[in-house]
């Protein structure tokens, strides 16, 4: 990384060479802990001076090694992630934290632990509902995570340190939301592609460095004089994972993607962790309730004995309405990663919801490889042709 680069160009450099900073920190004696999913509470790593590093897949990498343990009709993102690990692309890691956010995460975690040999490996179980007993269980799961982290580092995780880490991570969430404020104008001041570069850079950096990068990017973008091109449509993309610029560029060729509601976009940053007497409670609450992945079972009223479909849709997708209004979105893409069951079951209902609030939407499936480009291009262009009338 050149020392001079700042802001967006620095983000792009990190995006293209994500592991470089982690390797430097490792050489300088820091401990690097990998995690595959945004449900892992990074605050707990930061509080113990561990550097969190999100282990991503690479859509340009053909999956070969992962075939040993995962079938081909399996989440292509996790297959790809594991494949990179088995090809020793993450061998600078001192450990991994995995989580039962969905089946593929859980199944891959077991295989990952079995076929690698990091000094530290922990699996967090996660309930599916947001009921009080489920929250308490999840809080206890985080407490168990604390125990193994303390044993691994030989240090205590104090309340002060955890609260301070929560502050830094909340700051990061606020900065990402501020970044997304910059897609509200027309034309947007920053593209969906650039945001992916920034956010994917963040997940490879210690939180403080990430916050510095975000601050630089925000000030650079605010002072931009060469604005972006205004395209005929402002799109929302709803997906499990959209974290690659090649895929994003297919969407952005003829539209402005102003909201990426996936774990490669705003999903992990939409809300903030509250301070509670027991900081683990605040973390459990945030991670189980506030991250809007389809893996969590939501309903209008806990344990309801009557159900009404309209209220049900509202409880599952209602948050999208404000986004659509505030970002003046005129088209929604339901982007499915193939074999992602939690999101796939959601598609017809989400379509019902978009219809009910009058937003045109289209369903597109991709398999997290480069080969998917041409069909996506045709679908997105045809969809834009239908709304541009």
């Amino acid at each position, binding site marked *: 990384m050149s020392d001079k680069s700042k802001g967006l160009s620095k983000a792009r450099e990190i995006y293209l060479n994500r592991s470089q900073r982690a390797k430097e920190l490792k050489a300088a004696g820091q401990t690097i802990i990998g995690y595959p999913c945004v449900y892992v509470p990074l605050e707990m790593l930061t509080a113990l001076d561990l550097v969190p590093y999100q282990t991503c897949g690479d859509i340009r990498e053909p999956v070969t090694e992962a075939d040993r343990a*995962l079938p081909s009709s399996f989440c292509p993102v996790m297959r790809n992630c594991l494949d990179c690990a088995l090809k020793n692309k993450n061998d600078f890691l001192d450990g991994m934290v995995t989580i039962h956010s*969905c089946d593929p995460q859980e199944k891959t975690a077991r295989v990952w632990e079995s076929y690698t040999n990091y000094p530290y490996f922990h699996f967090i179980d996660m309930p*599916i509902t947001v009921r009080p007993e489920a929250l308490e269980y999840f809080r206890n799961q985080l407490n168990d995570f604390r125990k193994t982290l303390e044993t691994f580092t030989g240090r205590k995780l104090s309340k002060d340190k955890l609260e301070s880490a929560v502050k830094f991570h909340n700051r990061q969430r606020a900065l990402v939301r501020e970044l997304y404020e910059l897609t509200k104008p027309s034309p947007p001041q920053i593209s969906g592609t650039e945001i992916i570069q920034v956010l994917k850079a963040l997940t490879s950096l210690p939180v403080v460095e990430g916050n510095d990068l975000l601050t630089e990017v925000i000030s650079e973008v605010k002072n931009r004089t060469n604005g972006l091109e205004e395209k005929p449509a402002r799109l929302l993309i709803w997906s499990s994972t959209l974290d690659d610029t090649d895929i994003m560029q297919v969407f952005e060729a003829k539209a402005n993607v102003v909201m990426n509601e996936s774990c490669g976009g705003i999903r992990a940053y939409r809300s903030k962790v509250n301070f509670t007497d027991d900081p683990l409670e605040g973390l459990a609450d945030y991670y189980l309730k506030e991250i809007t992945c389809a893996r969590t079972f939501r309903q209008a009223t806990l344990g309801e004995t009557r159900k009404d479909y309209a209220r049900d849709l509202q409880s599952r997708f209602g948050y999208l309405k404000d986004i659509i209004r505030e970002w003046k979105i005129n088209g929604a893409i339901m982007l499915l990663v193939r074999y992602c069951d939690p999101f796939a079951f959601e598609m017809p*209902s989400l379509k019902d919801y978009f219809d009910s609030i009058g937003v045109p939407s289209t369903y597109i499936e991709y398999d997290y490889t480069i080969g998917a480009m041409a069909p996506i291009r045709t679908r997105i262009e045809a969809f834009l042709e239908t709304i541009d009338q």
Partner: protein
Amino acid sequence: MVVEKKRTINRLKSMYPLRAKVNETYLKSIEAIQAGKPAVWGMLNFYYGDPILKAMDIEVVYPENYGAIAAAMGVARQYLDRADAEGFPTHLCGYSLTTLGYASRMMKELNGEIPPEAPLGGMPKPLFLMSSAAICDARYKWFQALGRYMDVPVWPLEAPLPGIKEFSIEDYYDEMVKLGVKHLRDFVTFVEDIVGRKMDWDRLDETTGLMIEVNRVWHEVNELRKASPCPMHSRDFWSAMPAALFLAGDLEDSLRLYQDMYKEVKERVHNHVGAIFDEKYRLVFAELPPWHSLAFFDKLADRGWNFVIESVGYHPPIPLDLSRVSDPLERITKFSLQFLVGYYQDALKQNVLGGTTAYPYLKYAREWRCDGALLHPLITCRSASTHLPYVADMLIEKMKVPSLSIEGDIVDLRLFNPEDALAKAEPFEETMEHYKKVRRQEGFDW
């Protein structure tokens, strides 16, 4: 030369009354439902919810079983096409698509009436949906998706899934139990509110006790299969299991029938009677059998293949003494957890950390002295398939037991090709012979 076909699988006499009871229970349940008794749609939930519904005398139908029936009767396709037309991706679980299509037909076209073409009496509109977090995401997302067609409440049962290593963290087990008990207590209240009746706690206590005892005896039956020759074939296991797994029928009857089975199997062991005529190879089967092509196992039996153990997902938990636990909800929770964690200490000792459902196959191979594994990955059932490559890898690496993989599907029954599978049997016998030698060289005792 045509020889009169000998019966190659020596079925247990005691299996027939057990199976007859399962079938009778099914028919009685349909009659009761047709007479207006409310029913619940349930997912296989590994005991958490079933004893509660049983104690409340609520009929349960299992859409996943109905998916299998629709496939076997050849009516699944219209429901699959319908689910496709409704916008559900075709790579979703085949059983889920079948029942989503069924629900769409029943509710959108027939105003809640059971479709006339539905086999075996169909499934009526339920009082509520009981889904489960156990084993796969489809189990609770599918029932949520059914809400598109029916405004009936859903209760997704929580089911903790600990890591094998994490399980030994202090207090970990107690936290899981706490979640289960509190969760089931709220579930009881939910059911009471819906049916407008109170739980009879004595009856729940009795039901729970019988559930545990039925499964204990059933476990002991399967332990006897370690004998050589193996006295009971997988086909008898699959025929007999619903009474223990789904608690089908009266539990006292079931207990007596499993005890009869125990006696018969024990006697066979004593007399060295095998489930097949000439046991040359002992095999383990994973996971769901090809229900429509079970005759395939007769052909393999002709070759001396005995299937001695199978389908961990259908097996009873390793017995645990719960006699001193007074709260039935705590007993249910601990019993349900045991389905998974019964294997954990052993798995940790063997350092097999990958896959809670994978380790049992190593235990099976070692203790039931298997020569090979027959794996049956299913195109649209990920939960019964994703662990299989790992199982194969671990079996060969740690136990020197080879695997043969034959693809199939749960709804597209033609994907399973018995001729093709049989063609692979002979070369696989050579592989099994080879690894028998390798195991001996490496000091294994079978």
